[in-house]
């Protein structure tokens, strides 16, 4: 219990003193995760729409697979990305291992199925509503997908934010492919793991509280900017 109070006071101290090391790892956490969310959304949202609108042979199996991949174990993703990017692996020549880029790659793999699954769910419901209208207007598949994505943008925002939530708190994969190198690939979660290893629970918890606060602030900001929950726009 004592440790919890020390964690809180440590968090306050770090924020109030604008600790340079803290700001650096917070910015890097955001850089990695926001990049991963943008890329994963660019892949996952159209993918969700594609599956919702198209009828194809293995559709059910694809949806089931996508849902299953939502639970992809980060450690395994990290290990596979590590082996692929290692100097003795197939993409070793790129020299990407232990860089923020490698961390972004791992996170994109982890959150794309999540974003695509939620997007598919949201778009499928809207598609049931829009189906007759869009067919009668003789729209192309591309136009239908674009319309559905635009009109369900608020649900899709939830999909992206769910991806953000999973990525910002993830430690297993980015520890392996990033290596937790100070000033290069250290982010909030790997720093917390490191401080826990040193037995410095106060600092570890302090960083943990900052991570949680960060996630809340980001979500509030996004919701404010995109003006959800405004009167008449439920």
């Amino acid at each position, binding site marked *: 219990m004592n440790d919890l109070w020390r964690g809180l006071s440590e968090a306050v101290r770090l924020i109030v003193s604008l600790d340079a090391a803290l700001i650096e790892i917070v910015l*890097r956490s955001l850089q990695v995760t926001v990049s991963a969310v*943008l890329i994963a959304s660019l892949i996952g949202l159209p993918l969700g729409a594609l599956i919702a609108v198209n009828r194809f042979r293995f559709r059910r199996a694809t949806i089931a697979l996508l849902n299953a991949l939502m639970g992809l174990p980060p450690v395994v993703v990290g290990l596979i990305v590590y082996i692929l990017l290692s100097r*003795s*692996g197939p993409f070793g020549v790129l020299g990407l291992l*232990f860089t923020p880029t490698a961390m972004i790659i791992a996170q994109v793999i982890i959150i794309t199925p999540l974003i695509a699954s939620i997007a598919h769910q949201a778009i499928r419901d809207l598609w049931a509503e829009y189906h007759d209208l869009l067919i009668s207007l003789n729209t192309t598949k591309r136009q239908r997908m674009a319309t559905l994505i635009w009109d369900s943008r608020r649900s899709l925002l939830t999909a992206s934010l769910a991806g953000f939530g999973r990525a910002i708190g993830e430690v297993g994969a980015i520890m392996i492919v990033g*290596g937790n*190198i100070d000033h290069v690939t250290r982010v909030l979660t790997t720093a917390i793991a490191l401080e*826990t290893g040193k*037995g410095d629970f106060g600092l570890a918890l302090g960083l943990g509280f900052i991570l949680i606060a960060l996630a809340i602030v980001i979500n509030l900001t996004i919701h404010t900017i995109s003006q959800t929950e405004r009167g008449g726009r439920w």
Partner: protein
Amino acid sequence: MKYFLLTIWFGFLLHSAPLAQAEEMRLAVTTSFHNSGLSKLLLPKIKRDTGIDVHLLVVGTGQALKLGRAGDVDAILVHSRLAEDAFIADGFAPYRREIMYNDFVLVGPETDPANIQNATSAAQAFERIWKTKSPFVSRGDNSGTHLKEMALWASMSSDTSSFTPDWYRAAGAGMGATLNTASAMNAYVMSDRASWLKFANKGALKLHYSGDPVLFNQYAYLPVSDDKHPHVQGAVARKLENWLVGSVAQNLIGNYTINGQHLFTPNGQ
């Protein structure tokens, strides 16, 4: 608005992309080197004297050797003679260079139920823990500390695979995490002295046994062979090696203390 934010974001990305800097190298080190606080002392001095930005990967000796074999790091700093010799024999490093040493200590519950503080040798201390089946936490991660512990169990011809988990727990974690586990379980644990002194969550644990020459813990620096992995920064790794065995580094290592206790004895030449 959206495009505006995106533009800002990509500007931020480009800005924070690593600029082509003077010299960088990747060094895989054992957790004890980092957890002791020594790396925090040395890295800025390395930067000042040689201009090298050392990117530190803090892992166990087993993983450090693995990273070296794959060519993912330029050099390693580890402490397990047998594993190092095998690494060199396989051609992954041309040689090993001794930098410093410290020693392993046996830490356990305040009451010392196995009575190891009066043991005459490390082997005897281990035997007493084994005979009394006192809870013991092992690293269990193929690190240098773990290999040393295995060698000590083997010296009294006990096979750790026959140990039952009711007293022998393999944590499969780094030194700090293993100490956390031991602290929570109030169990015996073997640690390097530096990690133990610096550890902040000692709980009811106390140092009970140290001093047997068997517990001597030599750290060595192995540059990864640039014949085996041509992309390795051989020249930079040699520059760092020369600095580590030089008088500046050796003095810094020798004078590093926590609570008035010396942690490492430099013996690089």
